[in-house]
């Protein structure tokens, strides 16, 4: 009872749906971060997170390396803590001395976290490579940022009101 015409048109329909899915997959959605899946976690404390939200991106020189997983207030000292998921592609890449700052893309764009990689002395690097510290020993010994570690060097978001207040205060003192 299924006529040939119906079969052909259903085939056409399915092909169209597949084409649409491909369009969405390749042209519309980014699969880079989400697709790879494997990530590791970092924590950072900021005095003020401004307009940062969960799922905001973490960028190094404009390249997205991870996302903000969750933002919460530390129960003890009431300081905002930001939990980051960094792609495992960048494992053992960023030194402990890296710093984070909350930046804004464009004048009205959304806020993101800029990661400024720190440095490691070349002689340390050699000994690290030789001892394979990061693979074997206690994670605390590793000079790179690893799972669950906290970044201490953070710069808070700029708050427009504070900035203007500061500007007026400086003007007044001159």
């Amino acid at each position, binding site marked *: 009872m*299924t006529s040939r015409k*119906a079969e052909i048109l*259903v085939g056409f*329909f399915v092909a169209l749906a597949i*084409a*649409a899915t491909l369009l969405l997959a390749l042209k519309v*959605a*980014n699969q880079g971060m*989400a697709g790879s899946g494997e990530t590791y976690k970092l924590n950072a404390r900021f005095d003020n997170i401004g307009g940062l939200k969960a799922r905001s991106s973490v960028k190094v020189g404009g390249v997205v390396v991870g996302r903000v997983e969750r933002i919460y207030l530390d129960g003890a000292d009431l300081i905002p803590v930001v939990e980051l998921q960094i792609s495992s592609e960048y494992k053992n890449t960023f030194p402990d001395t890296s710093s984070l700052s909350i930046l804004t893309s464009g004048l009205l*764009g959304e806020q993101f976290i800029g990661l400024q990689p720190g440095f490691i002395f070349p002689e340390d690097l050699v000994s690290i490579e030789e001892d394979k510290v990061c693979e074997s020993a206690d994670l605390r010994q590793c000079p790179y940022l690893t799972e669950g570690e906290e970044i201490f060097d953070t710069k808070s978001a700029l708050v427009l009101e504070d900035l203007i207040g500061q500007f007026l205060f400086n003007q007044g003192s001159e």
Partner: protein
Amino acid sequence: MTQLANYFASIGRTTIEKVVAIGQASLMLFGALFAFPKVKNIGLTIHQIYVVGVQSLLIIMVSGLFIGMVMALQGYTILVNYGAEGSLGPMVALSLLRELGPVVTALLFAGRAGSALTAEIGLMKATEQLSSLEMMAVDPLRRVIAPRFWAGVISMPMLAIIFSAIGILGGHLVGVDWLGVDSGSYWSIMQSTVEWDKDVVNGIIKSIVFALVVVWIALYKGYSCVPTSEGISQATTQTVVYSSLLILGLDFILTALMFGIS
């Protein structure tokens, strides 16, 4: 006093009726679900995909195109005030993928295919075709309900994907070709904002849920309708009203679950 008793009695009666109806609908769904693996019926399912899917394709594509174009036009006039017309791409894409694609497709599907399914099944019941199938030792759940059910559940997510894709192209048509947004930024900002698993896949999941609801209501309303012309017209109306309301209500719940709590 008796008035109060009557009032409670009517609440009770309505509740019992609704519970019985939900039970019957569940039994029907159960029958339809377990009737799927029959090889013989695959041809029937394909035929029904043609009826509910392919024949809805035109209205879905035209609606998708226009909605994408309107979104681009409206979005542009707002975004251009902030010099943020580059964000037109993600705006169009996200609203289509997360909301408009699944929801509008489901509403159109309920109006176009759902009502037709109810009327068809209702008429089959009124003209004793369902009874006669049963007397011919052919289970109508297997022969009539199951293929339509699966065809609907398979077709709707595909229609929603096509709707979103066409809408995004329609947004490109207006935003880029007509209003002069940069084509590169339209696609690239869209690409950096839209995520496959969070946005696209969630939209598809929504669409599957809506499909289950619409087809289930449509088939049950047809199957249980009073077999008169008035009963069929009432059942058809109920299909469209109930499924539209349920789609919008479920959409809120699903959105809250998927995007609300992060």
